[in-house]
């Protein structure tokens, strides 16, 4: 018995070692948060516009019934979210210079605050859904604000980015995803 017991530590160590070796796989990024939505159709949701704002609301139909040409960027934002401010400038520039189609989900935000925020910083969004109670946020499976999704022409989610789209690396990832989404769309129309 004692003999068997003495082998227990080495057995446990070897098992743990196996897991550690697996964990070193260079393709594995422990910081990556997978999204169940990738390659899935956009979740069902229907959001009213932000109260007192001219921009129309956003629903899954707006994303699914896309004309198939241009991918859509869906950005989850809130006026209380500090990084969103920084990201806002980047997205605005991408709308202006790259001509991307940007739609917003205003997450758990008071309409008054959201209006002030957009009046302050400008409104680059084509449509904005007001998600007061965070239900759409649950459908989208967001883990925080901001988050950004890319939807291709067929209404399929192709990319998810957690955190503000800031810096060359993040912007590069978003551009790559947009390019991929465009090719998806082109493949289906042809």
């Amino acid at each position: 018995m004692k003999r068997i017991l003495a082998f227990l530590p080495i057995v446990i160590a070897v098992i743990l070692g196996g897991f550690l070796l697996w964990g070193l796989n260079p393709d594995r990024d422990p910081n990556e948060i997978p999204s169940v939505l990738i390659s899935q159709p956009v979740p069902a949701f229907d959001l009213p516009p932000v109260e007192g704002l001219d921009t129309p609301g956003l629903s899954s139909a707006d994303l699914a019934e896309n004309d198939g040409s241009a991918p859509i960027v869906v950005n989850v934002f809130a006026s209380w979210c500090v990084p969103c401010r920084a990201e806002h400038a980047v997205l605005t520039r991408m709308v202006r210079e790259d001509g991307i189609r940007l739609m917003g989900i205003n997450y758990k935000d008071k309409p008054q605050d959201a209006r002030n925020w957009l009046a302050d910083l400008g409104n680059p969004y084509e449509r904005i859904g007001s998600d007061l109670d965070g239900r759409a946020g649950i459908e989208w499976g967001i883990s925080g604000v901001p988050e950004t999704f890319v939807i291709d022409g067929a209404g399929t989610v192709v990319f998810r980015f957690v955190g503000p789209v800031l810096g060359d690396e993040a912007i590069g990832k978003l551009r790559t995803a947009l390019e991929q989404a465009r090719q998806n769309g082109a493949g289906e129309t042809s």
Partner: protein
Amino acid sequence: MIPEIGQFALALALAVALVQSVLPLMGTARNNVIWMRSATATSVLLTVLVAIAFGALMWSFVVSDFTVVNVASNSHSLKPMLFKVAATWGSHEGSLLLWVLILVIFGLGVSLLAQNIPLKLKARTLAVQAWISAGFLSFMLFTSNPFDRVFPAPLDGQDLNPLLQDVGLAMHPPFLYLGYVGFSIVFSFAVAALIEGRVDPAWARWVRPWTLAAWVFLTLGIVLGSWWAYYELGWGGWWFWDPVENVSFMPWLAGTALFHSAIVTEKRDSFKSWTILLAVLTFSLSLLGTFVVRSGLLTSVHAFSVDPERGIYILALLAIAIGGSLTLFAVRAPQMEGGGLFAPISREAGLLINNLLLATATATVLFGTLYPLLLEAVTGEKISVGPPYYNVSFVPIMLVLVLVMGIGPLLSWKRADLRGVLDRLKWVAGLSLLAALAVWYLDTGGPALAVLSIGLAAWLLGAVLTEWAGRIRLGEVPLAESMRRARNLPRAHYGMVVAHAGLAVCMIGFVGSSAWKSEVVVFAEPGTELEIAGFDVRFEGVEDLRGPNYLSRMGTLTVTRNGSYVTTLRPERRAYPVAGSSTTESAIRTTLAGDLYASIQEPASEDEQGRWTLRILYEPLVVWIWIGSGLLALGGVLSLSDRRLRVGAPRKRTRPAPAPVVAE
């Protein structure tokens, strides 16, 4: 030129370490005294060479030699000198060099200080130590060379991560490594004993001071890190159960178990294989910590640059060190028969429970730390394990431990009288119940765990004092006699008293700052007033200041209580333009009753000048954590300074056991 000298010294050091890995062992096999003694000479040489390399790297940082990649990416010419020096160990490569430096210094310590160790044991211990040195030196030379050059040299450096430019954190790694690496000596002793196939009380006596020394350093290292997180990160917490915190905590827990178990091995000649196993596991956990921090295996706020190749190399080192030693253990441990028998109620049994609880606690933390990895490997699901897990698993184990801790020191060896001990503690039990009730009365809606914990902290404190009073027979004999007894009590005993009391003090701090913390977060404009824990805080405004390599925006908060002035808090937000990031310098007013803590975040955008995010916390009793941790470390130091450890030969115990064999 200087970096090349450092590089050359490192290469030579590897060669010397390889010689020391082999020659003394061959000496023990052939009874060649010269070969065995060579370990002393080579460990001196090894230390000198690694010290030269470390000095060369530090020199490159001090003179800002940006032709060295490591300097260019971790330093800046405008940085204050203290942080230029500290940047030597701020990067992966540099900290590894510090790691190895401490490793060889400990080896040197054994070869010079340990004069009364049998020659064979010493030769084997130093050889094992050299294996570890060779492993890490080769790791450094092949994958993480600190002296790599860059051409063309940049005009200026990229600066050290500003979060690390802090006195508390500058001192954190050296202490932590002294702890981690200090356990390597204990590991080497254990492996040497396994090779020899023999453990006796004398062995435990040689091992204990090294364990204690490493433990004291590790305690200080962990506390410095925790203190740094508390005032620098701006969240006001001091422990987050982050993987990297956990991997430093596990060796601490295992090391605590180790020196308690070594007491039994030394005094009663039992728990031999268990003590050996703990010695191996403690250092294995230190190695695991090194691996986790440097491989990017787990998500953490702390991490060095991630490189899978390095990860593979360290994992191979781990496999050799841990796998080899545990295999040796599996083969040899069954031969070590236990010594003295003991009754179920005895000091030995108390220490056994201590060890079981500490081992379980260590396993709990290990499981919590690796669980996300295990789950991801098996199911692909990604999760993180946070405080809720540790609150229901780790904390209860520790509470039971504290309960037993009160009783353990009062038990006598071999066979104890539990009824008599409990009789002596009845007043303490009553008082701690009162303390718990008082807490419950003051904070009826509060967490039940807090009530229980305060009661147990009072219990531990009372039991420790009771034990001490019993030793000096306070109240039973004249006061002068008690004083005489108090003076004659061994230092090691005071070490125990102080360390156990320190844990009780820590507990009070843990509970106070986690259960009764209050927090206010506001968007503040100059003139904003708020109220927290009876303090009135007024935000006066912000001024811009310029530091040596940063720009600071310092807020001014006037704190009053019932209309009378208390203090002015000046939290800062520092922007480091070169490193491209910012740090929070929180302002803290510390009293024994609690800390008033303020941190500030710049306005969300340039358009909103004047709207600052203020985070004001009141953390009751948090300073007790630092005091208690200081007592823990002081207890270790007191115990180390005990005369018993300084005199040469182990004294004979009263027990009629085979006297420990000292000389070969």
